[in-house]
């Protein structure tokens, strides 16, 4: 399964890159990411008035000599970054060739690899699945765990995307990057994205769609059955209806994108059959997802 998700060539392509978050987040262990917390790191952050008890080694003697004012230097600490890989495993993700779920697992593996290589803490979360919190994966040892975790991701019959996202936002106390890999086929997904952003997560949303989602090949008089339990819809699949569907899909996707951007995140719409190298080149690098 691992080999199917990422080829050695893919790993070589990803090896030089690191996730490039727009914001900084507090870490739990020292890592390679700068944090807002002032600390003892070597990277200068600011000056402050000297108070009794401060370490005299950080007193700026040059300022004291010139201005007769005792100030101490403060430094930004370097901590690890939490990267949450949120994989939508709802029934709608089984559509497409390859399936949208497979594409989600593969992209999660790619971004997870990049995060592990950057020393970040990677959490794999299958939306809709109820499971106890798992310890983060870090460093090279975490790579094999990541792959095992992704191999275990299958189609879930659990709740819908929006409710799963909201639940994640409310229960996860460690802020960081939330990488959402989903087709976004939920009417309330935009609201859930806003909740996620409001909780301090930086959202990277990869909306994975199948070809038949964008250009459905339907004909005749049909009763459409919702894979995720929605109301059946009766249609006559003619050019008018198909155009109306495409219009609605475009509006829905635009709303998702707007929600993500308002929350300070990043958004990309990719087809499930899009090659990884093309995605790296044309999306992640171009739009600054990785650096």
């Amino acid at each position: 399964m691992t080999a199917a998700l990422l080829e050695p060539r893919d790993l070589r392509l990803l090896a030089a890159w690191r996730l490039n978050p727009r914001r900084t987040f507090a870490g739990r262990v020292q890592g390679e990411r700068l944090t807002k917390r002032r600390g003892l790191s070597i990277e200068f952050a600011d000056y402050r008035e000297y108070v009794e008890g401060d370490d005299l080694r950080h007193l700026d003697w040059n300022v004291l000599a010139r201005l007769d004012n005792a100030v101490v230097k403060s430094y930004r600490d370097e901590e690890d970054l939490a990267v949450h890989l949120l994989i939508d495993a709802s029934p709608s993700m089984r559509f497409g060739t390859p399936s949208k779920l497979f594409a989600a697992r593969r992209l999660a593996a790619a971004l997870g690899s990049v995060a592990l290589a950057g020393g970040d803490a990677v959490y794999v979360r299958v939306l809709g699945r109820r499971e106890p919190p798992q310890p983060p994966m870090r460093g090279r040892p975490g790579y094999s765990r990541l792959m095992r975790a992704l191999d275990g991701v299958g189609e879930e019959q659990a709740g819908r995307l929006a409710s799963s996202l909201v639940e994640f936002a409310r229960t996860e106390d460690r802020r960081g990057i939330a990488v959402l890999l989903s087709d976004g086929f939920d009417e309330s997904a935009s609201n859930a994205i806003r909740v996620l952003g409001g909780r301090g997560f930086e959202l990277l949303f990869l909306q994975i769609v199948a070809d038949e989602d964008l250009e459905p090949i339907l004909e005749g008089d049909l009763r459409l059955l919702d894979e995720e339990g929605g109301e059946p819809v009766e249609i006559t699949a003619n050019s008018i209806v198909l155009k109306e569907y495409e219009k609605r899909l475009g509006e829905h996707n635009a709303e998702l994108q707007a929600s993500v951007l308002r929350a300070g995140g990043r958004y990309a719409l990719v087809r499930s059959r899009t090659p990884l190298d093309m995605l790296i080149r044309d999306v992640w690098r171009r739009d600054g997802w990785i650096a």
Partner: protein
Amino acid sequence: MNFAAAGQLWWLAPLGAIIVALYLLRMRRRDQHVPATFLWPRRTEEVRANALIQRLRFNWLMVLQLLALALLVLALARPISMQRGLTSQVTVFVVDSGASMGATDQKPTRLDEAKRQVSGAISGARIQDRVALIEAGSIPRVACSLSSDKAKLQDALNGIAQTDAPPKMDEALRLAAALCADESGARIVVLSDGVFPKVTDFAPGRASVLYRMIGSSDKNLAIDALGITDSGRGRSLFCSVANDGHAPVDAVISIFADGAVIDSRRLLVAGDRSEGFTLGAPAAAHVFEARLDAHDDLAADNYAVAVADSGSHMRVLLVAPAGDPFLEKALALDPRVTLDKSEALPDTERAQTNGSSAYDLVVFDGAPEVEVKAPATLTFGAPGPGSPAIRTGDTQKPTFTDAEDVPLMAGVNLSSTFIDACAVVKPRNGARAVAVGRTGDGAELPLVLAREGARRQLYVAFRPGDSDLPLQFAFPIFISNALDFLGGPVSGGSLVVPVGAPISLPASQSVKLTDPAGTVHSLQPVGGSVAIRDIRKVGLYKLDVDGKATRIYATLHDPASSHIAPADNLSLGAGTVTASIRPVRTFDLWRFGLLAALAVLTAEWILFARRS
């Protein structure tokens, strides 16, 4: 707008209900799994229905189908619009060209007025209208069959000419009905003054009949009688003039004897009355003509002729219990003959009864000859007590051997005649055999016996029906010769015939006919006789038949034609047709309904194709 078949509109309700019911049925749809349904519009087009009932929803397809159905049913109901005009989609104009249509109360004549109206109708006809023209004269003819070619119709209309003969409207109407028998919505338009006998044997079929009355006046004088009487005190001539109108009319009448005026007088004839007079006539004259110079509207009946020759006109009674159409036809073809038929001799014609005979000749065909008051008899088959022959027996299949060279047998060759059964006779006193044959055992047998005396008698030993003589050229020639013999010689070769009546004369070679206008026609004989069918105007026709000159005087002696008051109603067949002042023409709209339905169905199909 009216409907020719309004009952068809009832189809709209059940068929419309069926279409609506089909849309009430719920569509059975194929299940299709999709990632999410919230992106799909709830838009269904009911193009097929085959399941349970559902709520009726607005649907353009249903609206278009109902509209198409409504248009189809509308077309089926044959909508028609009413417009003023003589023509319809199919119109047969029957133009009366009979004698009374020569009346001048419409200028120049009634016929010209009728032609003017038809011409206007032809000019105003729509391009898809078809029109036919029938000339209702003495010999009705189709002047132009159904056509949309207006130039051709106008030419044919111009070719319709006045005749002084009574029209044969019954034949003309039957021709018209036959012309449009297969046409729906056809119209027969009769342009006439209605001066013709009641038409009994006519059914217009699906066509409607419209009567356009021509004429307005009844002002007409006619010579209703011109006769000659020879008595011991000399010859006298009787003439009568009738006024068929309601107003008195004065006129000058002139009498001619062999072309010379012998009398001329002024007459004032009161309305619906006759004025007659008698005058002495020169005994040596043969042809007497009367000409009326009157201020009336019809000139054709202002001329009459009487011929003093005894054989110039013959009233013939045919007594034939079994009937013989060949003999009837041969007698009727002779212009001198006025034929009556009877299965038995009327008692009033027997010799023993009082009074004079109404006939100049009695023909016995199959009935035994009896003594009659008439001055001449022609007997076929069974002789009687007064016959020129005495019957002695019967024989079969005799053969002709010889005939005398007499005018009676001129042009008659019986050598090839097959006679199946024949009476064996011998001549009575005074009788002579003009044709003889031979029986099977070689005995001589008189075939034709003639006797002249106080009465002229001719006896033929076999009936025409027992031989093939009627099928030969010799038969009409023999009958004509027999009439010459029995009626006496025709002095000067003069005949008086009713105008328009076809006549037939024996002739062996081409005949020259000079009509009253001086035009010379050449007529070719067929089957030993020449038929003259074109006596259309009153007056003198000169014939040159085998070098012998014959003068034919055509006159209109028809009281019905002289009564020129136009008739408001026509009695045609079982119905009556009233003159229409502002005739209405119908315009069939069903084709437009059908085209509209097709257009709607096309739109419905396009919509269906786009939505499917």
